């Protein structure tokens, strides 16, 4: 399975904390959610205890609506971790959700084109399921 991963096994794994558990659980199911305030209905990411707009503590997780667009990108060539030595270069994208108050998420671009990565292009999530205990899922991105 690991041949289909953008980056090899052995990097630090994400683990849920008391704030963002629903995000990682949804990713396991192949769904993308983010924090949304039940009071003012504003979107917020990354997760926080408090809504930065209305100061309500009642934040829920809801499916992120609308298209995802590439906001910025980089292509690391220098392996900063020993397991990346065989994986460079790879492409990191910063993805923005215009219909969810412009929240952004970081991920890797699956099957990236050569050269410049198109800022503004629409991308779709590609769920990368890591089954070794403790299992987790990374949310990667693919050009639509």
């Amino acid at each position, binding site marked *: 399975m690991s041949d289909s991963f953008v*980056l090899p096994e052995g*990097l*630090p*794994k*994400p*683990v*849920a*904390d008391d*704030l*963002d558990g629903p995000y*990682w659980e949804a990713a396991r199911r192949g769904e993308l959610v983010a924090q949304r305030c039940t009071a003012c209905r504003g979107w917020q*990411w*990354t*997760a*926080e205890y408090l809504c*930065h707009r209305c100061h309500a503590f009642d934040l829920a997780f809801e499916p992120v609506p609308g298209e995802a667009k590439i*906001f*910025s*990108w*980089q*292509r*690391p*060539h*220098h392996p*900063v*971790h*020993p397991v*990346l030595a065989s*994986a460079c*270069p*790879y492409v*990191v994208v*910063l993805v923005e959700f215009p219909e969810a108050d*412009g*929240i*952004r*998420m*970081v*991920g*890797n671009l699956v099957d990236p084109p050569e050269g410049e990565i198109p*800022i503004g292009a629409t991308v779709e999530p590609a769920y990368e399921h890591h089954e070794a205990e*403790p299992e987790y899922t*990374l949310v990667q991105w693919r050009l639509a």
Partner: protein
Amino acid sequence: MSTKRTMRGQVAIAGIGETTYYKHGQSPDAQFKLTLKAILAAAEDAGIDPREIDGIASYADDKNPPDRIAAALGMKRLRFSNMVWGGGGGGGSGAIGNAAMAIHAGVADCVVVFRGLAQGQSARFGSGAHYPRAIAGSYATTIPYGVMSPAQMFAMRTTRLMHDHGISRSTLRAVSMASYHHAQNNPRAVMHGRPLDEEGYDNARWITEPFRLFDCCLENDGAAALILVPAERAKDLRQKPVYVLGAAQGAEYRSGAGGHNNPDYATSSFKTVAPDLFAMAEVGPGDIDVVQSYENFTGGVVMSLIEHGFCTYESANEVIAFDNLVAPTGKLPLNTSGGNLAECYMHGLELNIEAVRQIRGTSPNPVPNAELAFVNSGPMVTPATNAIVGSEATL
């Protein structure tokens, strides 16, 4: 009745000290020994008995604690100890600002600001190998995707800067070449004797696009220190006083939002901090004689220069050009000791020391008649900090 709240001109930098600067991992001394050497050198420079130091300020999660320093130096008493939050180099000018605030407020009389590190002992910034096997919180949304080093944390801001404002690669290159040019006149510089030309910059390997090797700071071992005292006391000491005219720190709205969610993305974090600095110093960017702008990465320097008003987004490609950036002839002399790129990555404190040298007239690349020197510490971090220092004529 209103009283203007300012510390402009109330505190002076009286002494500066540095160890030899080493390539990373090559210091023969432990980092605490380096730190003590730099502090003793600063005290000697000032003509102050180091036992008279009564305050200690640092930043960047420095690992040399004030209790041990105070005990090792035999300080008669410790009255102030302080650290700027933030693990990167954003806090150097802020530590000077905090030291000046303590003196101005009357809680200490002689404060040392320092940074000391030997990377055999402390983890390198540019390696992700020290991260734990499992990671939680907002970093769980970046590190597992191979966004681990500072270059990777800040590259996408630079991509976006270039995309939004047409900042060219030659502008980034000019920043790098200015530092390397100045280092060639500075025997203390790690890159002394290692000049960089356009071809060398252009052909260097990628670290992470858009950064090539020479867009990125060094990693070094060493220590640096400055000693601050009340302005009136500085007049009686060994060196020409260099006055703290202003210091500011902070960042914009939600600058620290996790996972690259700061709303204004392609910023050095100085948009709200720069006006505070110039207001306290009662000068504008056009009055500054020499600029020391922290190069973690060249893109951050471009953002810093724009956000402090040394140029605009529209004029950046024209103003940030090699001929403009080099002393003594350039209009905007930049990083005149070689800075983080070519003198030493002492997390920017070497830039604050170079600003003092420029006002004293002892820089390896002196700017003629420099009276006002500007420093900004680590751009793109939160909090980011800055300072303006000047000669007696600027009071």
